[in-house]
């Protein structure tokens, strides 16, 4: 990854009639990075990708690719290529001709086309399958052909629209790593659109989270998980317990807060959260909570509660604990080390949390 910005989106917008699909999106993508646009369906992420590709006209703003303003340049003359959600493999062409399709538009000699096609197919581990018919391919193979067909063009940016959503879970996980490796070997910028947070977190250098046409936060996956900029992002990525809190004192880097159940404690300020009032919201990841039958020592905040529900997920167990003073039960997860479920509904348990694990989420917006 270099510091050069390969794509600059400057205030791009898309309106369909009175509906705003993408509103004032500003984003710089670095050369060689794997970037994901993550968000629920209908948040405008695919529209944004299609504006980069040139399939969707901009209502406002500028798309700049490698220093060149793309205004008026149609998709067939942009230095980008796309992997479509449906893969869009040409059904009337065999694998070799599918991959060679774009090269034939460029007046390249036949022998070079053949070489580049077989290289591209080797790269996606479909070597020698040139003469296989498009209709005889499995889902995973079609995905690989779509990748090879786009990469053989040596684009400056590869755009991927939900590239793994049509595959089953096992294959999807395998392809996540393969695509990541491919991207790192080639050093090409990948921009992927996905609604799957795990996919985005596994594959990406950085993730841009979109809601309702707006780009809300751009960060590396660990930062996004640890320091979400608001409640929406916090609940979209991973699981989160939300609690109200009141700020008692504040310094440049820390807040002293009082919570309804864990008492008073000091937490770190979240740099991604904007201005703060006195009534704020905090988040605690389930895996950051200690759960114990005995009163735990060495925790900044502890509370006694009652198990309401137990969710056994296999790799870990989630306990939903009802605590006085908090309406919704608090979820605490425990890794399944010993293949045991230690607590059962009705059991009294202690919850413990460190101030460092508590995430400040800014002014309390919830109406309750």
């Amino acid at each position, binding site marked *: 990854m270099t510091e050069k910005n390969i794509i600059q989106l400057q205030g791009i917008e898309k309106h369909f009639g009175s509906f705003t699909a993408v509103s004032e999106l500003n984003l710089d993508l670095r050369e060689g990075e794997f970037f994901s646009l993550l968000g629920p369906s209908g948040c405008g992420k695919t529209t944004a990708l299609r504006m980069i*590709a040139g*399939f969707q006209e901009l209502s406002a703003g500028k798309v700049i690719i490698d220093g060149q303003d793309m205004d008026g340049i*149609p*998709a*067939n*003359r942009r230095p*980008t*290529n*796309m992997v*479509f*959600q*449906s893969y*869009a*493999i*040409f*059904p*009337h062409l065999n694998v070799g001709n599918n991959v060679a*399709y*774009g090269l034939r*538009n*460029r007046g390249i000699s036949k022998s070079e086309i053949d070489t580049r096609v077989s290289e591209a197919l080797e790269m996606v581990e479909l070597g020698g399958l040139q003469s296989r018919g*498009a*209709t005889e391919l499995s889902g995973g193979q*079609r995905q690989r052909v779509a990748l090879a*067909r*786009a990469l053989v*063009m040596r684009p400056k940016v590869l755009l991927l629209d939900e590239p793994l959503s049509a595959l089953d879970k096992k294959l999807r996980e395998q392809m996540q790593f393969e695509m990541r490796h491919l991207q790192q070997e080639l050093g090409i910028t990948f921009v992927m659109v996905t609604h799957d947070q795990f996919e985005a977190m596994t594959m990406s250098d950085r993730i841009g989270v979109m809601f309702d046409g707006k780009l809300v936060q751009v960060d590396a996956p660990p930062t996004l998980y640890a320091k979400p900029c608001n409640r929406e992002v916090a609940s979209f990525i991973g699981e989160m317990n939300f609690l109200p809190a009141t700020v008692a004192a504040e310094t440049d880097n820390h807040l002293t807060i009082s919570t309804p159940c864990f008492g008073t404690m000091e937490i770190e300020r979240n740099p991604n959260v904007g201005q703060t009032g006195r009534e704020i919201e905090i988040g605690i990841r389930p895996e950051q909570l200690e759960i114990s039958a005995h009163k735990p020592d060495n925790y900044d905040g502890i509370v006694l509660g009652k198990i309401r529900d137990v969710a056994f997920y296999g790799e870990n167990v989630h306990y939903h604990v009802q605590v006085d003073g908090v309406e919704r039960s608090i979820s605490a997860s425990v890794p399944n080390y010993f293949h045991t479920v230690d607590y059962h509904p009705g059991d009294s348990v202690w919850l413990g949390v460190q101030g460092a694990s508590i995430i400040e989420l800014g002014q309390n917006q919830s109406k309750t």
Partner: protein
Amino acid sequence: MTRPSGLAIYAFSYLAFLYLPVLFLPLFSFNDGTIVAFPIKGWTLEWYRQLGGQETLIQALVNSLGVGLTAALVSTSMGLFAARAYVRYRFRGSEASEGLVMLPLVIPGIIVASSMLVLFISIGIKPSLTAVILGHTFLALPFSVSIMKSAFDDFDPSLEEAAFDLGSGVIETFRRVTLPIVSPGIIASLLVTFTVSFDEFVLAFFLSGNQPTLPVYIWSQIRFPAKLPNTLALGSLLLLASVALLVVAEYFRRRSSKSTI
């Protein structure tokens, strides 16, 4: 096997009612006698042999083939573009225009024929094969539009986008991706519209003037009892050709809906 139920008997007699009369055509075309009545006098291929020597018949056949081919080509190319627009785009008036295109299916032929005759004469097109071609294109259009629509229904729009994305221009995309993928539909449409035109009588009767198409020629021959066996033989051949064409067309139509992945 159980005893045939009432429903099976009904279905059987229904089919017999539909197709038995048609079977008399080939049956009597081999009859060695000029009177169409049982018992069959003997078997002969004479009536078929005589067809070869009749020049007006050959001319009518050539007329029909020419009209059919032209009408099929014109209506299929119009249907191809219309169907793509109906399937791919939402636009104001799309339903109304589709309804208008389908209208010839329900307007009585005699009405269409007489209004076209009046129209063509008033704008200076004399009854001729050209007039028949125009009329048949109009009649065949609903068939080609509906066949091409089913071809485009299963056509993933991102295929065209992919071609464009890979550097093809609009025309290049149409030639290298759209056309090959809908080609089974195009073939099916050509065959069906050709058959529609080839079999059509009423419009051709009104508009053909002194250049009869085959159905018009047959009608003119039916008045002469001596020519009847010839007409039966000719009719049998046409029947065979029509059925063959429609079977092939159906094969391509099914292939077109299967070809997309």
